[in-house]
């Protein structure tokens, strides 16, 4: 299913709200926009250091699904 770019642009406003609320947490390593699990709309994508960090995050935020990637750390390649 094709998703219009403006759906992602609308999600970015919600992303900003999410960042204001959560991005200062030390175990969050990035916040962006990805596809939701049903691939029919945008979702918030959050990179975190470890599994316990997921517990501090909501499953949804302003009706957007929150998809969490446990990445350990991001390193220069």
């Amino acid at each position, binding site marked *: 299913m094709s998703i219009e770019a403006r759906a992602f642009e609308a999600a970015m406003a919600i992303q900003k709200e999410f960042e204001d609320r959560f991005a200062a947490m030390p175990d969050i*390593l990035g916040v*962006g926009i990805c596809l939701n699990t049903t691939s029919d709309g945008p979702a918030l994508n959050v990179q975190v250091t470890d599994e316990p960090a997921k517990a501090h995050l909501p499953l949804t935020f302003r009706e957007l699904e929150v998809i969490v990637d446990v*990445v350990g750390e991001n390193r*220069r*390649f």
Partner: protein
Amino acid sequence: MDENSLQEVQSRVFSEVLGFEELPFMAAASLGTNFASAFVDHELLNPLSARTVRRQRRLQRDIALGTAPGADGKDLRLAVLVQDRALMADASVAQVSSIAKGEVEVIFIGRQQPFWTRSKQRPLKMGSSISPADAGYSGTLGFFARSTTNGHVGIVSNNHVLANVNKYPLGTTIVQPADGDGGGSPTDDIGILSNFIPIQFGGFANAVDAAFAELGNSVVYDAINIYGNGNTPPAVGSLSPAGTAAVLPRLEVMKTGRTTGHTQGQVRAINVNNYVVNMGRQGLARFDGQVLFEADPNSGGRFSRPGDSGSLITDRTGIPVALLFAGSQSGGQGNLGITAGNPISTVLSQLQVSFV
């Protein structure tokens, strides 16, 4: 055999046939390196024993161990990968088979050569290894560009590849292959560092990890072809710098890099802010507006690894998308790790360059 039995067999082969010694785990960890296993070459620990291990040295070079499916498709067998045909009937292989109680698949794989990306390439190719002379590491040549301020032609890669995170001064000699891949000055000189965007620390947001090195007048280059994997690299596509890609999640992409060669993936996330990257000794740096990528779900391998930094990521038609600079070991499709790139339009505007 099951996985535990296979590990025991591999341990015995490492020590009894290949002559490696096992370090206690904490001893290996204390050396400060991420070892893939606790087995080390004891010749490295005791140089005086070199003559006594000459035969084992050949076996270590020509035999690798892996995992193969069992005859019933359920259990596992030890895979013995042999580079020298003469070893196929050697007593050492028979000894390996004995240790594994016959649950072995011996495979002749021929002499393995390193990726073309790590050897000298003239004309220069996108994806080949580069670094400052004497840097001691390797990165990737992303693409060829022209300075919009003075018209000089050069190469684009990361600040942390060409300038070692703000460290090297303008004018530093750049070599291909990289110092980390055996390149050296003056034989392998290709140009000089002429611009980099300083990476800010202390919580300031960065947009790119990018640098530009002007090429010497006599250096020939191929700015068009995108090369795939193989000892004689095949062209698998052409760069289309005039095109514009709608960079949205699931956009299919590809890249050619020094470490993993040509790989395919897809966009995982866009507009990624507060992306925190460990830049090494300098500490953590924050990047905003980044694009994240994950491995192609059908590839079974990672999209990138350390050493691929500087690679140009394009869509599958060759339209530039991003400059690869960081990543993680986990997360994303198949938990194969996530790769980060600077949007290519931001790289071009900040470095004041355009595609050749």
